[in-house]
């Protein structure tokens, strides 16, 4: 019946069809818990909350894994903004690191692409060709400084050879407008060795800071 309604272009027929499919269990969910159809169902609601502009999305690989290192202040909106913005611009899902492994919050956030904060978890995602959103630490005092970047997490990128891309997020926690600025991928470390991850983290941190400095508006009210 829903197929017939869809063909006739009846309003709401697509949503009805999706609900029917879900009731039959005919939907996909990946090994980490991402439910793309649920994300699509929630899309209109997320659209009411955030209005996102994305610059430099062409810097991201069209296929294959990459680590997107992004700044955050309070860290509530940023993961959602990054995931939604990149999905709108490229059609790819971003798996944001840092979901607590506690029910029901953890499983709920995993449905929208959240993953655990573990180096082996990030490496597994990169091997599977996923985009991984790696947040820097919170900086509650100032929106003009990017936080600290955990070196160990970048070992996953070195291990898999995935590019590391700095991303600046500009917006207010309670505001609707956000801007995502994607920077150039950080050149890979050729030598390797024990210092490779630390050097990569330092370069990425500096690149993200420059990107944020250039992206922040200059008005006094901001």
């Amino acid at each position, binding site marked *: 019946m829903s197929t017939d309604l869809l063909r006739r272009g009846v309003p709401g027929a697509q949503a009805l069809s999706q609900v029917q499919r879900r009731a*039959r*269990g005919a939907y996909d969910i990946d*090994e980490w818990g991402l439910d793309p159809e649920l994300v699509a169902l929630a899309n209109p609601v997320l659209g009411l909350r955030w209005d996102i502009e994305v610059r430099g999305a062409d810097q991201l690989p069209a296929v294959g894994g990459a680590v997107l290192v992004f700044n955050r202040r309070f860290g509530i909106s940023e993961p959602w903004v990054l995931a939604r913005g990149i999905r709108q611009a490229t059609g790819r899902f971003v798996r944001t690191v840092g979901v607590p492994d506690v*029910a*029901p919050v*953890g*499983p709920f956030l995993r449905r929208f692409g959240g993953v*655990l904060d573990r180096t*082996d978890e990030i490496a*597994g995602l990169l091997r599977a060709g996923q985009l991984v959103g790696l947040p820097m630490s919170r900086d509650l005092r100032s929106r003009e400084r990017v936080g600290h970047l955990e070196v160990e997490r970048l070992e996953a990128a070195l291990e898999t050879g995935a590019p590391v891309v700095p991303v600046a997020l500009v917006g207010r926690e309670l505001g609707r407008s956000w801007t995502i600025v994607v920077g150039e991928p950080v050149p890979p470390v050729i030598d390797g060795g024990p210092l490779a991850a630390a050097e990569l983290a330092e370069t990425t941190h500096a690149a993200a800071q420059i990107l944020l400095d250039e992206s922040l508006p200059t008005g006094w009210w901001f």
Partner: protein
Amino acid sequence: MRVLITGMGGELGTRVANLLEADESVTEILGMDLFPPRRRIFRSEFHRVEPTDRRKAVHLVRDFDPEVIVHLGVFEPHSRTSPSEARRGTAASAVSVLGAAAQCPSLRSIVVRSGIEVYGRSRGAPTRPDESVPIAPTSPFGESLAHVEQVAVEAGEVADVPVTALRFAPIVGPSIPSPLGRYLRLPAVFVDPVSELPFSLLHQEGACQAMVAAIGAGYDGPLNVVGPGAVTATQAVLMGRRIPIPVIGPGWLAAGALAELQGAPLPPHSRELLVRGCTADGSEARSVLGIDPRSTHDVVAQLYRWEIVDHPAPTGQVAPR
């Protein structure tokens, strides 16, 4: 090549024996198990051995002097035996057979059945571990499998031969006794929709193909053998047109008791899978063994397609049509 198959009486063991019987490079096959083979075997020799009868098992292994050991003598709790019998049988079978095999002069490789339950699902554990993740089992079955792997590695070190530990996702199929399969086929199934995580499954045929491929590969180390993709418990239940009954926390005690009353007892590792998920990265096994297991979605779909049961007519009668 002389191949010794432990656990030949199980669905996997019999099928692996049949596959090896078709291989001309396998000259002799000796099987042993507590139960007789599930199907006809053609040129394999079978011996019924109690897992705890170490003397008989050691005697058979030494006399046969195998070149390859395929150790399938792993008993899943509530599959065909009680949890305590399963634990004792799995441990005793591994120690006696693999211990005796380590002293066989012709031994070239060991292939053992393990499971992805060895990774455990403690809080914060990786969601999709690969073979490099250290094992940390959190269920009795996971501990049993970890013990089998440990014994096999020790035997391999003594005999200086490669040991392939195939870590299978939970095996489900049309004729394999599986507590998870039985549970999911109940008319109404308890699920935990607020905390459940996805799990992966493996079809029984995929497990057998992996076993046979591992004999030829001679790989040294563990390999995850997992059907691609994953499902949640609620999704599986909906796919089977069963009724999902939400339950959380302590409610699982009552749910487990009710399931047992209906003939589908739920062992701890299956309950853990339904709530905490259970999956692993199987790309290494696909590359090393050249296998292509069925997807988890296909395995679940087939689980619910056994609606028609053929009842063979008694001897001398014609089945009604």
